[in-house]
């Protein structure tokens, strides 16, 4: 029999633990690098004009990102209009019906939808909206983003509503309240925090998406409020400016990156606060 001296085993144990801890903390380094560089390069680009002006042509200094900020908001708001109603109802369906082949396929298709690469979603929105309408538009970008939000909202709604105890529903039904009213007036309000969390998370997910917008919202250097015309968004602007050869545009892109990171991480943080303060508790 081989011998395993206890001292060596304890040494191996300790070394292993140290390696695990070191590697776990090491992966945080890139995160700090990214945040540090975005902040240090971006914050110098940011001032009031940067946030309230339109981008200027190459060669002129200054210029801002107002159109991209507005565009991002337009895209997100329209995509919420698409995805929240359908997502919440499909989520209620998943929490109300839990067995059977149809339910299984619905759940599976939600999971598949969630895994579809964002660039493929872009192609879909292109073939569904851009081709029939004949031009790139904010609407098509919003359809793409809505498709990406949908599975997040469905899952969040379904999982939250499942946590609500049956006693609530039974009490309401026993009082003679009709089934739809029970769902809308009792079950939904009880699970509201989870649904709101899901919607906020999905917004955080799509606000930073570029790939589905490349050939749908397309981007434009002008201010545009018409949803049937191309519109710019923050990530799209960062991509276009970062891959351009002009250093003025790189500065703009760093500033836009800082705004985007603050926006997305702030939204994530806000969601966390909402979830912890306003939890579903029974």
């Amino acid at each position, binding site marked *: 029999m081989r011998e395993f001296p206890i001292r060596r*085993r*304890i040494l*191996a*144990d300790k070394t*292993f*633990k140290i390696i*695990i801890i070191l*590697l*776990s903390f*090491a*992966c*945080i380094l890139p*995160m700090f690098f*990214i945040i540090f*560089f975005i902040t240090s390069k971006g914050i110098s680009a940011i001032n009031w004009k940067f946030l309230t002006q339109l981008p200027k042509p190459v060669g002129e200094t200054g210029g801002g990102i107002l159109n991209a900020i507005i565009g991002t908001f337009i895209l997100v708001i329209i995509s919420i209009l698409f995805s929240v109603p*359908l997502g919440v109802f*499909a989520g*209620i*369906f998943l929490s*109300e*019906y839990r067995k059977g082949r149809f339910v299984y396929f*619905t759940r599976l*298709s939600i*999971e*598949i*939808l969630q*895994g*579809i*690469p*964002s*660039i*493929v979603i872009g*192609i*879909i929105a*292109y*073939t*569904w909206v851009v081709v029939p309408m004949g031009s790139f538009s904010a609407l098509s970008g919003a359809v793409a983003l809505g498709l990406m939000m*949908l599975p997040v909202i*469905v899952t969040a709604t379904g999982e939250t509503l499942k946590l609500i105890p049956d006693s609530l529903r039974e009490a309401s039904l026993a009082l003679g309240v*009709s089934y*739809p009213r029970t769902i809308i007036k009792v079950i939904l309000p009880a699970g509201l925090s989870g649904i709101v969390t899901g919607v906020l998370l999905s917004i*955080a997910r799509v*606000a*930073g998406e*570029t*790939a589905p917008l*490349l*050939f749908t919202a397309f981007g434009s250097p002008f201010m545009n409020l018409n949803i049937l015309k191309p519109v710019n968004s923050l*990530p799209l602007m*960062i*991509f276009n400016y*970062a891959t351009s050869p002009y250093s003025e545009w*790189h500065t703009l892109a*760093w500033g836009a*990156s800082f705004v*985007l*990171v603050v926006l*997305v*991480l702030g939204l*994530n943080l806000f969601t966390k606060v909402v979830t912890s303060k306003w939890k579903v508790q029974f």
Partner: protein
Amino acid sequence: MADHSNADVLALKVDAKTVNQYKFVMSESSFRKILYLAAICVLILLVAIFFSLLLSSLPAIRHFGLGFLAGITWDPVKSEFGALPFLIGTLATSFLALILSLIFSLPISIFLGEYFRHGTASMFIKSMIELLAGIPSVIYGFCGLFLLTPVIRGLETKVGVSPYGVGIFTASLVLSIMIIPYSASIGREVISLVPSDLKEAALSLGATRFEVIRKVTLPYAYSGIFAGILLALGRALGETMAVTMVIGNSNFIPTNIFSPGNTLASVIANEFTEATGSLYLASLIELGLVLFIVTTIINVIGKIIIRRMGAGV
């Protein structure tokens, strides 16, 4: 018409009651119908996505057949389209990224699932991982382009290959950081699911913590960890922006890990708006179809494994 008889009034009342009940029942069944409709909409969406990809790529499928996947030239000028360079580029970046990310994601899973399940340290690491997952991919690409490429260029000069700075290796490096959160969170979940009586039994037999992890925890959680890796692979295959910005965009088969290349997603991102001619566009959409099918298969396998493990992911 004021002289209704008593019976008439009674009949009217009964009618109103039945109508109310009728409405009550109808509203329930129609509400259930709406719920079903929503679910059917989701199913239809997925089917429609698949078929519209298939339909739009039909010209390319007809023209090239299965040879599309094996074709080594992608030349829009001559209308010759083969997907092999991008397939190789995608597989190379994804697998390299997967291996690199495992170096970090596995320790994090053990850290959070075994050593520090609660407390400040685990909260800190957990929120950092969440932040990492929250950063938009275009930001990763931007930082990779401006911070990582000079470093890689220096490395390439030392190794003795042409110093592009961008290429397969740079893309894998950026990707590996991006997919750490996915495999780490699932790994943590399955490792914390390992029954403690198994671990305690090993400990009481005199095993050290390291031996418990190696001989009990990891073998037990193996399939779940594998599922986490699969789901991370699904992410890596479809990741677009960060890869597009740092991979170098060359439509030839990469010769080594430093040479520039293209992935399925990045070539679509680069060429879709410039695609002239229906065959060109159809070929790009067929790349999207391939990507869709591959990621779907990988995701479904991963989810099935996780569901068997009983983890609530």
